[in-house]
């Protein structure tokens, strides 16, 4: 059962004014989260994440290559996202459009800037050979909040990754060296209501979106505002609080599944 777009915004705003969401969640409550690792045996690491009905698979492949000149002893990572036509009647086949590119880049930055992957330990021959980590995100079913699902799937997949040194005859296999990751949480705003983990309907009527990644200490590691509306400072604080609270819960769940 879905609500016709033209009436959606009024309906959701009316509900929000009464403190309700269409699926009876609290404003800062997530839908049920499922994390499954090792979903793709062929990949060096993989995970499938479901947040509500949104379903994302992330796969990690490792390759060997040359380092960047300014970081001769560090491994390299690359993130790509595919919003394949399967996931929604509105996705078209073809090279990634801006949405897929923004998604990939935001997930990439969240992992890269907080140095979640210990790239200094991914050096094979200083200045000559390093490990490349390819993160490929596949959206299978789109029901809102791709940022968080893609982020979480990528992290779970990285935790599941074994560096295939033996396949390249460089030594013994070893688990991908990782540091504690920041967890990304996304909220959207429509008509003064701020809701976390937006459903598809809520995303469709949203004026502005804010993703905040927080770490174990409750510090902020990354932020991305999207869409062409605005936030007040108070609203931003609300989003940050929701992100810290939910980040903690999601991190616990992630650690449980990957066995940390």
């Amino acid at each position, binding site marked *: 059962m879905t*609500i*016709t777009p033209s009436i959606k915004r009024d309906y959701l705003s009316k509900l929000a004014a009464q403190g309700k969401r269409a699926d009876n969640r609290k404003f800062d409550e997530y839908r049920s989260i499922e994390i499954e690792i090792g979903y793709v045996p062929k990949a060096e690491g993989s995970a499938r994440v479901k947040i509500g009905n949104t379903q994302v698979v992330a796969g990690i492949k490792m390759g060997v290559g040359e380092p960047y000149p300014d970081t001769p002893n560090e491994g390299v990572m690359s993130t790509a996202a595919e919003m394949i036509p399967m996931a929604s009647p509105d996705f078209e086949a073809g090279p990634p459009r801006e949405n897929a590119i923004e998604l990939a880049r935001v997930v990439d930055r969240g992992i890269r800037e907080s140095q979640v992957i210990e790239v200094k330990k991914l050096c094979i021959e200083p200045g000559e050979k390093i490990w490349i980590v390819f993160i490929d995100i596949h959206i299978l079913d789109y029901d809102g909040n791709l940022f968080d699902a893609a982020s979480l799937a990528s992290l779970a997949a990285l935790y599941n990754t074994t560096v295939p040194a033996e396949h390249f005859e460089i030594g013994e296999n070893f688990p991908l060296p990782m540091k504690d990751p920041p967890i990304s949480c996304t909220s959207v705003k429509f008509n003064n209501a701020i809701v976390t983990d937006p459903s598809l309907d809520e995303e469709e009527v949203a004026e502005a979106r804010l993703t905040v990644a927080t770490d174990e200490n409750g510090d902020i590691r990354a932020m991305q505002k999207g869409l062409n509306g605005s936030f007040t400072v108070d609203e931003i604080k609300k989003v940050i609080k929701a992100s810290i609270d939910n980040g903690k819960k999601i991190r616990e769940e992630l650690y449980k599944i990957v066995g940390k």
Partner: protein
Amino acid sequence: MTQEKREIVIPSQLLGDTKQNKAGRGTFVEQGKIYSEILGIVNRKSDFINVIPIKGRYDPIEGDFVIGIVEDPMASSWLVDINAPYPALLHVSEVPWDVEFGETDRYLNHGDSVMAKVASVDINRKVNITLKDRNLYKIKGGLIINVEPSKVPRIIGKKGSMISILKKYTRCRIFVGQNGRIWIDGDDENVAKVLHTIKKIESESLSYGLTNRIESLLKNETQEVQ
């Protein structure tokens, strides 16, 4: 209480032959044998064999009442999305207003909703709809939801039994389009009741005794409030 056994059939399933039966909706004939062409429930009435679809897009039939959403106003007509594979055409001669050439957007614009009737479906599946009938008009207020078109008969019920129960216990105005769109108008609390009841009917549409269960549920909810 009798329960007719509901038999699920799949495409290519043999249902009978033309010597003893007639091929109805949802079936095809090959060499005198009648097969199902879809995933559905087989329905044998007189000597017709029909298959009622469990899922699938809306298939417009002349005379169907539908809820349409206007896509594009054009010079002397509108293109209207009726949840079928292609949009339907609403011509200015089929509306109760006197519309000047090029003034169509003054009456119906992109995003407006209408209660309409399917006037004709030609051989190329091009659909024309009309607003010229009592009870047909431009929709104002209320809420429109989408359900699977194949569930509409369940929501209406045998001879309207289910929809009458819904209206009785919620005092809402409800209009069910054959194309899977439903318009609901009433106070917030009752509209919410209608929504979650429809959701329940959707997910249990194949089960037996649904109408009675829904009635008890609604009766209890109403009594609780009192």
